[in-house]
């Protein structure tokens, strides 16, 4: 068996495993202003995203759900990226930004839905709520 570091050079970067183990902003907010659920149709993973938006700014963010390491890490990283930022900024967050934060150059097509689950929910929520 190869050692862990050697194997992780491709997909399971240290940063992804860290976020997957200790996800940031995991849980629920007491009084969210906006909530949206989404599902990764490929595997059935469900995720709920909550925001507290005040004066065009995302004051608080929380999310919960069961997912694989990629979807958990990308949700965690996305929550870091948008907390305290303006709606305008959150709207611009892209797949590229997520990949960069995760230390990846690209994602396998079959894992793309895992990577983008939280991002898609965020984008839907922002569109639906006319934020």
């Amino acid at each position, binding site marked *: *068996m*190869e*050692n*862990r570091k050697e*194997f*992780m050079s*491709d*997909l*399971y970067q240290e940063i992804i*495993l860290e976020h997957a183990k200790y996800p940031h902003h995991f849980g629920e907010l007491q009084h969210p202003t906006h909530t949206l659920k989404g599902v990764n149709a*490929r*595997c*059935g*993973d469900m995720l709920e995203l909550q925001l507290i938006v005040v004066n065009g700014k995302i004051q608080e963010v929380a999310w919960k759900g*069961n*997912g*694989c*390491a*990629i979807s*958990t890490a990308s949700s965690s990283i996305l929550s870091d990226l948008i907390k305290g930022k303006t709606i305008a900024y959150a709207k611009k967050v892209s797949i590229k930004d997520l990949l960069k934060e995760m230390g990846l150059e690209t994602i396998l097509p079959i*894992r793309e839905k*895992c990577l983008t689950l939280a991002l898609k929910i965020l984008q839907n929520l922002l569109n639906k709520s006319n934020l």
Partner: protein
Amino acid sequence: MLPGIIDGMFDVQKIRKDFPILSRKVQGSKQLVYLDSAATSQKPQGVLDAMNEYYTHFNANVHRGIHTLGNESTSVFQNSRQKIAQFFGADDNELILVRNTTEGLNALCYMWGEKHISEGDMIVSTEMEHHSNFVPWQQLAKRKHATFTAVHVHEHGELDLHHLEELLKTKKVKLIAVVHVSNAIGTINPIKRIVELSHQYGAKVIVDGAQSASHMPVNFHKLEYDAYAFSGHKMLGPMGIGGLLVRAKIIDELQPYVFGGGMIDTVSVEETTFAELPDKYIAGTPDVASTVGLAVACGYLNTIDMKKAFQHDQELVAYALEKLSAMKNVKIVGPLDVKKRCGSVAFLYHGVHAHDVAQILDSEGVAVRSGHHCTMPLHTKFGWIATTRASFNVYSTTHEIDVLVQALQKVKVVFGK
């Protein structure tokens, strides 16, 4: 010498030589270990050659051109159809060619369901059903203001026949849609008993045969169910061809739902009359090459002998159950009795999502399926987020299961679990 057979013995190493893809290397220099045959099986060279030969030498539309190629193509197509029907012990006129199991079940839903289901009727599926034998009936029930419900599944992955009987006793049940072998948990359902019960109460039985067709002998005339759908690509044939077998007494009463060329008798502005069986339900140019390929696959399976194929499968399933259940972090789903299962072994890995398990196995060259396997009601019922499934076919080996078990050790290395 016949493929895979030496002195009447089942020789998996010899069978493997007929499947060039199995010697592929993946992930650099790793030997491919293909344990995803329930999603689609690999195809022997003979199937690929036959399809190539069809397009190279015989290609012409069927039932149309009065010329040499048209004749040859038509007779190749008809012979292939007959061979496929024979493989299942059915008459040529009981086989409707479709693209796959899903299309077969949907076709039946329109061709039989639209006419026979009405308000107040009940359609019964099961909690272990693949979405393709669940959603079409659920949607039909909605259209018809009928009731749709699902037979419960016991903790160990078996159907609750008492529940089925309770439902039948309401005398509202018109149809039972049930899977022969579960694609998610491998359960072999007691189809014979289900048919007895259902017919006693006047309900028809539609069987999803996607996972049984290539794993066990299926004799359509011996079994009493009313229809059976299968996919060619799961039984060593090409993608894009499958079949729906329907009892002779029912098939002629079906209503065509795809109209056009090839399925008509006469057409005028006022009226259309339809062709005789089996053309009546095949509108448009059929996939002749795939039909040819599937017929060759059926011949290949016949040569191996389906009884031996089933025995081989049972050995693999027993071996996988033994090896996987010995792993501390692995929990097998579905029946633990090998006699009650077929084709695959699915499991949960404690604390690690199935997608991650599959990804790590892939890095070792092992191909498995992860997710809900199109059985969301079952996964939801048991609270499984996603499962990992290793599935087999005639070319699978116990050595491949050893590689799977070895590769699973890597999950522990990466996730520390």
